[in-house]
């Protein structure tokens, strides 16, 4: 049975006796050698980011007219090339672009034309050519990497998102809304679990990840804001959790692969342009990525962050100064290991006849090409394995050469 949180191997791996939890302070159980020292972060932008605002094609003559009030003025967009700019709320992305650490992609889409958030997000996460999968492409990538330690792949979420569900071990982590128990209490619990083959090792491992997070959270609080905020605030403020993720991943014994989830992109009403609702969300995302980079420190040089969303939004504004569910979207590969400073797009154009179903930016690049670029170029997963196990049926969407630093 597919599990929500798959730790069979971890638990079966024993070696982590509950009684081994030394006091005071948590014993650091030595990690096995990591299959990779590279860092890979997937940021899922749930709700459908408007690519025509985040990565505005200000050089397309149809853009301003098509978008009306929602268009990012050419003079305010942060210029990338003759065609594209970045939203003015994304100075961190612009700086990364200028350093060659950002590759931007436009007119990308999942392989299925689907305008339901849930169904499209499912496909975004299963990586399949149709609905209905039970495990995620990132989990299958872990299997291809031979990952065996649940502590090295962390979803910073209350439970494992579909992208990480499957047979390979991974764990979820959220800074608990609950106060943690005192060391004395946790030691008593560890002793109580000493005879339990499942609970003992699980508590030890959980406390270890928590201790690592606590070490990291001081740095996180400085860089990204207050970790001790409520869940609702956390959901709308990715920066603290990104900073914590970065601080944990910076450690030699820390996670290598992480998933972050950012919400609030479903801008049906009052989307705004250079300022407004979407601008605030983008500013927060920009701050979060800067916090992640800063917390990773030197490890940023070995990092690729993939920012993906389930679909784009309608090319024209709707009647509520917002946009509805569309098709072609933007995506980003960000990080010190990216050979960027480029916008990669087979640009379809924005004239009425060029729109998909006369309403959406037409998709010209399969999102799986972008993801395969990171998985093969950065994590070194064999292309044949990618084809067979991670993104089956994606032969027509090859990885792109020259986007990851050798």
């Amino acid at each position, binding site marked *: 049975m597919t599990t929500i949180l798959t730790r069979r191997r971890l638990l079966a791996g024993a070696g982590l006796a509950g009684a081994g939890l030394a006091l005071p302070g948590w014993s650091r159980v030595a990690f096995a050698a990591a299959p990779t020292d590279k860092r890979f972060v997937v940021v899922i932008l749930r709700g459908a980011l408007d690519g025509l605002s985040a990565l505005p094609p200000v050089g397309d003559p149809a853009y301003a007219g098509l978008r009306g009030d929602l268009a990012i003025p050419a003079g305010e967009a942060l210029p990338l090339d003759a065609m594209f700019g970045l939203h003015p709320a994304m100075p961190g992305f612009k700086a990364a672009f200028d350093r060659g650490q950002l590759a931007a992609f436009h007119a990308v889409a999942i392989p299925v034309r689907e305008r339901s958030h849930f169904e499209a997000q499912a496909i975004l996460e299963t990586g399949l050519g149709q609905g209905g999968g039970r495990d995620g492409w990132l989990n299958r990538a872990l299997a291809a990497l031979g990952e065996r330690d*649940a502590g090295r792949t962390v979803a910073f979420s209350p439970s494992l998102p579909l992208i990480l569900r499957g047979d390979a071990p991974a764990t979820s982590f*959220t800074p608990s*809304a609950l106060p*943690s*128990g005192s060391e004395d*209490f946790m030691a008593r619990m560890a002793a109580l679990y000493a005879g339990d083959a499942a609970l003992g090792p*699980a508590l030890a491992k959980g406390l270890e990840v928590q201790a690592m997070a606590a070490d990291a959270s001081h740095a996180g609080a400085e860089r990204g804001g207050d970790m001790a905020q409520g869940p609702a605030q956390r959901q709308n403020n990715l920066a603290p959790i990104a900073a914590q993720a970065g601080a944990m991943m910076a450690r030699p014994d820390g996670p290598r692969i992480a998933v972050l989830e950012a919400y609030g992109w479903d801008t049906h009403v009052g989307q705004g342009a250079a300022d407004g609702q979407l601008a605030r969300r983008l500013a927060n995302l920009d701050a979060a990525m800067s916090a992640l980079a800063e917390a990773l420190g030197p490890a940023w040089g070995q990092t690729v962050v993939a920012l993906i969303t389930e679909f784009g939004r309608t090319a024209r504004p709707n009647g509520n100064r917002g946009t509805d569910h569309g098709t072609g979207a933007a995506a980003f590969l960000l990080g010190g290991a990216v050979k960027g400073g480029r916008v990669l797009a087979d640009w379809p154009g924005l004239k009425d006849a060029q729109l998909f179903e006369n309403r959406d930016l037409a998709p010209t690049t399969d999102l799986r090409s972008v993801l395969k670029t990171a998985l093969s170029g950065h994590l070194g997963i064999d292309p044949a394995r990618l084809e067979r196990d991670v993104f089956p049926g994606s032969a027509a969407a090859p990885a792109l050469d020259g986007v990851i630093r050798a």
Partner: protein
Amino acid sequence: MIKGGTQVMQATPELALHRFGLGARPGERARLGDPAGWLAGQIARQRDPDGYDALPRAADIIRAAPDRGELRGDAMARRDFAAEIRDGARKAVAVRMRAAFVSDTPFHERLVWFWSNHFSINAGSKLRVAPFAFDYERSAIRPHVTGRFADMLLASARHPAMLLFLDNATSAGPNSRAGRRREQGLNENYAREVMELHTLGAGSGYTQADIVELAKILTGWTVRPKEYLDGDDAFVFAPNRHEPGAKTVLGRTYDEGEQAGIDALTALARHPATAKRLARKLAAHFTADAPDDRLAARLEGVWRDTDGDLGAVAKALVAHQAAWAPALAKARDPIQFVTAAVRAVAGERASGLDDAAQLRLLGALRLLGQVPFMAPTPQGWPDDTAAWFGPDQVVERVEWALALAGRVPVQADPAAMAADLLGSLLSAETHTAIARAPSPQEGLAMLIASPEFMRR
């Protein structure tokens, strides 16, 4: 007393409450004289729990929904409607949780939960599924948990929640009138899951061709549109979507029409592979991830002998010695864990929980990773111990136990409370650890987070 191997397997009140129920309330174990009889008495149709009648049924939900035209092009109205649905869903979950906190027939509730999870829907998957989630369990699952499996399968297949969740509602035969107009095409999602998950199981010999043929048989099974709603039936067979002609599934040929769907699903329900697989799944749920083979075989035999009488199967389960093994092999999932904690701590007072407490408990379920009606895939929530005892989850359960203990007045000595609730299930180590806790609150937290309480 039942003798099994060298172990003495006894049908004790504590195991009846703990393994087959929702956890003991204070004093309950000592009062329960005849555990086997207590369980057997719950294997019959029960009155719906308090509060259930106030919640809308499928037809009411369709009737009350705004017209499609009203929502089209009006993002504000859509947003309000979505907020209303979410609010309704939260209330329904609270009613369901409260029913479990106060239930006097907890074994019956557990059977409802088991079968509801077997025929899992996800209220979070599509907004249009969410309003129907509560009624789905109440109307399609609950009435049949001690009745016939085939009836439950049919009720599930015809309920809007399942029709919408697995897309049969929008499936149309390629040669049907709707299909020829290319309005919609064949959707095999439900047909696939009904064979793979609800009945036969993967690897039992059916083919992709069987799935497609079953999907064709079921074309036209859909949700009754508001404008055609007259009584309480939210299901309709729409002939204009139905694929014409005969179809063949697992070697049997079916005519066109609604009855073919009923016959085909009934055949799946009565298939030996279904009996074998689901008897084992039920045994695994109540006893151990790898259940005793004799127990599984016994349940399978009863299933086949009684043509899938789930009441008879449940009776066979609690009558079997292997079901009473003293080792607590299964993990309580978060819903069972939180429910057991509330019953242990609040007892009869659980009926008086205020809205704020209810909301906190829903928050606890979210934190611990299991919100009712929100299983992430059509497979339902996982049922194996490893899925619920992950590192982050165990830490969170311990922290939640501590938070809960800090919130309630600790009236009794926690060690005495542990002995009252758990009886012979309480290990000497746990009893001693609780007794030595530095404060009553920490003692209570240790009881709630103890291996005995986390397991069943």
